[in-house]
């Protein structure tokens, strides 16, 4: 059971989420404005925050910034805006993930699970972890060896670095910029065409099922590595 703060100015969304979360044994806290949300994060110490970016009193991104000044509570951003820029901005400002309206409850719950898991693990695996596992993908960082379902896969150093970065944060979306800077270096950030090429090669080598890929493209935002077995029903 987790304590989940839902911030949205739409009464219908609040009613739906409260019912859905409580029925699954979570405790739902509700806030309808940015100020109220900041106050509740401070006073009630929720385990995770669901934050709508379109709030009546302030921009959701500002709420996120204010929260991030003193709290590392996982934040899943809820947005009705089609704009990818806002999602990327929210992720850059410290959001853990996002869900686009209209969303399904299962999708939101999956994101919340990932966010809660990262919080439980203290923000990802220890830096000196020598093995990363996401579903049947296993990466031995010391030997630079990758296997899928026990089958060895031959990866180039860049492909390995790309996959290892995603595998450190299973289920979580990582932005193009974050991946480029991690794998190619800090002077990179806009060369998303590299990522498309490497992602496509990786999918071939992992023998990803196009219907249920392990390496998921989030158009305009980035990539995430998921365990297909954990995927919510679409």
């Amino acid at each position, binding site marked *: 059971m987790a304590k989940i703060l839902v911030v949205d*100015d*739409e*009464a*219908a*969304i609040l*009613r*739906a*989420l409260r*019912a*859905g979360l409580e*029925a*699954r044994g979570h405790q739902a806290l509700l806030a309808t404005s940015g100020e109220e949300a900041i106050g509740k994060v401070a006073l009630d110490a929720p385990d995770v925050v669901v934050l709508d970016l*379109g*709030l*009546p*009193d*302030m921009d959701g991104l500002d709420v996120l910034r204010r929260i991030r000044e003193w709290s590392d509570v996982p934040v899943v951003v809820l947005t*009705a*805006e*089609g704009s990818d820029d806002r999602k990327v901005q929210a992720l850059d400002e410290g959001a853990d993930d996002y869900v686009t*309206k*209209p*969303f*399904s*409850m*299962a999708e*939101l719950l999956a994101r919340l699970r990932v966010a809660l898991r990262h919080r439980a693990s203290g923000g990802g695996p220890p830096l000196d972890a020598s093995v990363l596992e996401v579903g049947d993908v296993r990466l031995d960082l010391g030997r630079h060896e990758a296997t899928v379902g026990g089958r060895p896969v031959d990866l180039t150093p860049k492909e390995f670095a790309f996959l290892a970065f995603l595998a450190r944060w299973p289920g979580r979306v990582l932005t193009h910029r974050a991946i480029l800077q991690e794998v190619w270096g800090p002077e990179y950030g806009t060369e998303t065409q590299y990522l498309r090429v490497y992602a496509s090669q990786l999918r071939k080598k992992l023998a990803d099922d196009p219907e249920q890929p392990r390496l998921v493209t989030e158009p305009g935002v980035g990539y995430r590595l998921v365990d297909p077995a954990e995927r919510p*029903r679409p």
Partner: protein
Amino acid sequence: MVDLRAAGRAPWLGAGLGAALVVALSGALVPVRDNVTPASPALLLVLTVVVAGVVGGAASAVVTAVVAATAFNLVFVVPYWTLKVNAGEDWVALGVFLAVALVIGVLVAEQAERRRAAEAREADLRVLYEQMQAIAAERARLLEEAGRVSVLERVDEQRAALLRSVSHDLRTPLSAIRAVAEDLRDGPAYDDATRAELLATVCEEAERLDRIVANLLSMSRIEAGAFQPSRQAVDLAELVADRSRRLRALFRQARLQVDLPADLPLVDGDYSQLDQVVTNLLENAARYAPPGSTVRVTARPVGEGAVDGGVELRVADEGIGVPEWERARVFEPFRRGEGSASSGVGLAICKAVVDAHGGRISVHRTPGGGATFVVQLPAGG
């Protein structure tokens, strides 16, 4: 620029013409020279100098004057056909003739010169004026062009704003519907009360979608200029009561209080359009009304008599209100309040409908804080 003073002048032509006239005139007067005093040919010869001066300028006049004086001496001063002059008074006459011819010729030439210059200046001014006219026309055309471009830009902006509003507005109720419907299908077993509440939410959000679509359709009709009320006698009290009952769900947190007198005159209007006005005003009030506050709907007859006066409808909330400088602009399309989740077309539709009915809509401050929308409609027959 061409030297305009030189333009109208032809010294050789003037002198030639002058000389020719002198010869012709002298020749013509030979038969009668003994029957007239020398003054007559002298005056006629001065005319040739005048002609030469007008045509060829001062130089032509001088040359013609000398030629005319010589001809006068040869033809009209005794003895004829010689340059000899016998009488002293003839010398005087010749001298006076030459002086008068010279003075008149030069004066006339100068005058003609001045007239030509004035004409040239006038032509010059006319050209300048035409150029300025052309520049002004070009400037006006450019301004008009710029105006058209800015109108197009505004239309583009409005279209983009509309798309943003539509996607935002439609997605918000759709989110709730989708989340609830999928959860009821795939999620945990809910108790009956929660299940009923969730299903009510789905219905309310579906109705909200319907209202948004109705507003968008009206907006497109208004923009296409095809928004004419089909009038009938409308009982506003009944309309408001009916609409308030249907929108009860919007007033879970704020209280809706409707107070309409029974003797309200009928309004000459389009029922469904007026219904949209009331719906949008109530939805707007519900959106801005803080929890625990009251939204008041009142109406009263206005004008001289209850019948030929009209009806005034007021929808007052106790929310944040509309600042003075925003009051005229809240009725513009796609202008949404601070952080508002509305499409920004609702109030624009209200204004379009009320205007089409020959009424007035305005927003004021609710005593104690909040916004009061006032609609005045003419009464029906």
